[in-house]
C-alpha cells in the first residue's frame, strides 16, 4: 500500500506501469485518474486545492486500509495533489491490484467515493474573470457512500 500527498505533478503513465509490473498473482489492475475540468467555455483559470496537512495522510491510509479489508487486494496506490493546477492537469490517481477484476474495480470505486467526501481536501475554482468559488460538496457524493 502506498499513499502519497504531494504538490508537484506525478507521471501517471510511469506510476501505472510501475504499479502493474512484477506481479504474478494479480490478474487485474485498475487505475483511475482525476483531471482538472474546465467549465466548458475556457473560463477556468486554475483549480486550487487546500488540504489539512496533519490529517490528510492518515485519512487516506484509513480509507485504503478499509478497502484492503473489504476486498481481496494485492496492493493499493493513492496519489493526491494539493496546490494550484490548471485545466487538464491530473489531480490524483488510485490504482488497485487484485487476483480478479471485480475486486479491483469495486475497490477503486470505493476509494474514489471515500476520497471525495472523507479526505480533507477542498477545491477552489479561479475563473479567468478573477472570480473565485469554493466547490460545494454534492449530495450525490455523500449518498454514494451509502452503497458501501
Amino acid at each position, binding site marked *: 500500500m502506498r499513499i502519497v500527498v504531494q504538490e508537484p505533478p506525478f507521471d501517471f503513465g510511469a506510476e501505472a506501469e510501475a504499479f502493474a509490473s512484477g506481479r504474478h498473482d494479480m490478474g487485474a489492475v485498475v487505475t483511475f485518474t482525476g483531471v482538472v475540468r474546465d467549465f466548458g467555455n475556457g473560463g477556468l483559470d486554475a483549480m486550487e486545492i*487546500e488540504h*489539512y496537512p496533519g490529517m490528510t495522510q492518515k485519512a487516506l491510509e484509513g480509507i485504503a486500509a478499509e478497502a484492503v479489508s473489504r476486498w481481496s487486494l494485492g496492493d493499493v496506490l493513492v496519489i493526491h495533489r494539493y496546490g494550484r493546477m490548471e485545466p487538464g492537469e491530473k489531480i490524483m490517481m488510485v490504482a488497485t491490484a487484485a487476483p480478479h477484476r471485480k475486486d479491483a474495480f469495486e475497490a477503486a470505486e470505493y476509494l474514489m467515493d471515500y476520497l471525495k467526501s472523507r*479526505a480533507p481536501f*477542498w477545491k477552489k475554482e479561479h475563473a479567468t474573470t478573477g472570480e473565485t468559488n469554493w466547490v460545494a460538496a454534492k449530495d450525490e457524493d455523500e449518498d454514494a457512500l451509502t452503497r458501501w
Partner: protein
Amino acid sequence: MDVLYFAWVRERIGLPKETVTTDAETVADLVAELRAREDRYDLAFSDLSALRVAVDQELTDFDASIKGAREVAFFPPMTGG
C-alpha cells in the same frame, strides 16, 4: 488547544489557526464560545449543517468531547478526488 480553520471557514474568520484556552467540554460548547467572540466567528458558525469538525485529526460530530484534545479543526464538507 489549537483550533484550525480550512477553506471558506478560514477565509471568513480570517486566520488559519489560533491557540484557544477553553473549559468547553464538547465541540458545540467551543463553537458557542467562539460565536460569542466576534461577528466574523458568529457568521462562520451560523449554519453548523454546512460544517464538519475533526478532533485530533479524526472526523467526528459536534456533540463530541474535546476534553484533553490538542487540536480541533473546522471546515466545510470535503471535496477531494
